[in-house]
């Protein structure tokens, strides 16, 4: 990628009007789509709010989704600021989850629960980091676009998870898509009351988010990372080793995604399932694109997106004509509107 495309990734401060009108249009379009499918948008909103916040259980689920989404988004803030499209994040979550499962299988029976869980999270972090670095090495030393290296590694991690679930780690008796044998509950991450939300997960996600804000905005490392992302050539001339910065961004993103994978295993599903990532890595990409790579806004947007995800799950039960994929439609429409709005703003600034 050249310097121009790098700088193009970041928009200058732009007239708010364009952005807001783009978002408003996208919301109107969404309303139209819902109307066409035969439901009232208000009923849908009502059902989604109920689905996300109706009971403590549901709130717990929102919080659980949020923790993993925050970890992924925080990680992606690093890669995006280094000018990289880390589409391989799904694989980094999955491989982290595989490593975390391995840790629990190895140590679950021999070590006390809390220590095994700690090892599970550490293994997850290492697994995610390795998978991230693999994409990074392919990019920096193999000159393979991180986009395709990442997508390819997603397939590989996915295949590996499926192989383990249906092969060596299969449930006693019959293998199935429902995943491996659930772990003994001593290996479950402790939760708030009867909900699924885990204090450890929440703490890790908040620490990661705050640390990302501080690192990207306040440290020399973050400054150098942003410099490389905007202009690798000038950064090099100024004495910043661009490839090392890129590799470190891949590693950091991988670590956070891997921890996310470990939380999915020990805190959420309590086993390894084929769709362990829950597409939260891709959702993280949308979150970070929507906030234009600024970590300060990751938390509110990630919270909104998590609520959408959980709130839409029950839609088909409440309103028979509306499918749960509505959350993805809303999220995608909003980000598309933001991109288009930004484009209009830039074009108008230039003219």
């Amino acid at each position, binding site marked *: *990628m*050249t310097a*121009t*495309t790098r700088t*193009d*990734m970041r928009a200058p401060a732009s007239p708010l009007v364009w952005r807001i009108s783009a978002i408003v249009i996208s919301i109107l379009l969404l309303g139209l*789509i819902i109307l066409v*499918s035969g439901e009232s948008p208000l009923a849908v909103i009502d059902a989604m709010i109920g689905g996300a916040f109706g009971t403590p259980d549901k709130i717990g689920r929102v919080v659980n989704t949020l923790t993993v989404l925050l970890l992924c988004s925080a990680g992606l803030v690093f890669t995006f600021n280094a000018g990289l*499209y880390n*589409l391989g994040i799904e694989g980094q979550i999955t491989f982290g989850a595989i490593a975390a499962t391995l840790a629990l299988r190895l140590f679950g029976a021999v070590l006390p629960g809390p220590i095994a869980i700690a090892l599970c999270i550490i293994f997850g972090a290492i697994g995610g980091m390795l998978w991230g670095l693999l994409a990074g090495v*392919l990019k920096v*030393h*193999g*000159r*393979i676009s991180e*986009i*395709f*290296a990442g*997508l*390819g*590694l997603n*397939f*590989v991690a*996915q*295949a590996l998870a*499926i*192989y383990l679930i*249906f*092969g060596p780690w299969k449930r006693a008796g019959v*293998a199935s*898509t429902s995943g491996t044998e659930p772990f003994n509950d001593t290996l479950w991450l402790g939760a708030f009351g009867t909900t699924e939300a885990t204090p450890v997960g929440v703490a890790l996600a908040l620490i990661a988010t705050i640390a990302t804000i501080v690192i990207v905005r306040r440290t020399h490392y973050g400054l150098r990372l942003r410099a490389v992302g905007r202009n690798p050539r000038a950064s090099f001339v100024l004495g910043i080793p661009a490839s090392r910065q890129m590799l470190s961004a891949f590693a950091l993103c991988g670590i956070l995604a891997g921890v996310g994978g470990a939380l999915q295993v020990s805190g959420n599903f309590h086993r390894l399932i*084929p769709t362990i990532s829950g597409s939260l890595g*891709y959702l993280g*990409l*949308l979150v970070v*694109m929507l906030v234009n790579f600024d970590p300060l806004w990751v938390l509110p947007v990630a919270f909104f997106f998590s609520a959408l995800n959980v709130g839409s799950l029950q839609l*088909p039960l409440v309103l028979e*004509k*509306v*499918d749960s*994929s*509505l*959350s*993805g*439609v809303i*999220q*995608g*429409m909003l*980000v*598309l509107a933001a*991109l*288009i709005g*930004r*484009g*209009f703003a*830039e*074009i108008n600034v230039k003219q």
Partner: protein
Amino acid sequence: MNLDQLIIILATAIASATPIVFAVIGETISERAGVINLSAEGTILFAAMAGFAVAHLSDSLWLGFAAAAIAGILIALIVAFGAITLRQSQIAIGFVLALLFTDLSSFIGNPFVRIPGPTVPAFPIPILKDIPILGRLLFDSDLLVYLSYALIVATWFFFYRTSAGLTMRAIGEQPNAAFARGANVIRLRYLYVLIGGALMGIAGAAFSLDFKAGWSYRHTGGYGWIALAIVIFGGWNPLRAALGAYFFGILQSLASVAQDQFPGVPTQVLTVLPFVLMILVLVLTSANWLDRLLAFLPSDTRRSVLRTLRAAPPAALGQPFVQD
């Protein structure tokens, strides 16, 4: 394995690769003109859904395919507008569209899940199908398959034997030089992105109305991403891209045969395996350590081996064109 089995494997591979052939040719056209349409995954899914839904409601295959092509064109229009007119990152726009239309296909397609619909009827070509081996390989399927053969040849001819095709390659290489020679870069890029989108849309309908008939949640999941990889593997050449698609088809065909041969290996693993192998081949051939790996060869041989294994992307791929 006897000859009969081999022919069956290959014939299945060729036929079932047909949708991917449409998709990779569409993407190749778009990228040759300088625009990456990264929305392939969403486009194929959404067009598959739209094609199936319209064919089911109207009971007309033609309308189904037309609807799929229009869906592909509309999504490509968003890509073109964002990338060419607004000069936004083609990766960002395409990726968001890929996710958005994946979910939109599930959302809108919900009422059409697992219901019967029309499918493209078999149409063995008389006489030709009786040619030994070749007949059964190539001419014992349906019109869509024959159309894909024609598409490959026609695209190749267009690329390398017509002046419009030459101009198309020129705007993807050096848009400024092409502009100096009178090409309307913006308009042509729109045109080829839309044509590419139409072909990807047809690819979707080729799944839902023919080779993976029907509609279900994420019916064609993964094929869009693999199509993007095959375009690189095909070195932006329609013939090679088609070969890549057939290679992938063979991998899939082998995977389904292996199910009978090795009942111990879970089906799900075999289903993903072709995707993994395809990507591995791509990674191995495009990495620049291949140069070092082949260092023992004389330089002429090495260069031609490298040239067969990979090709440079169009020089202006992904770059917005600013006319000054």
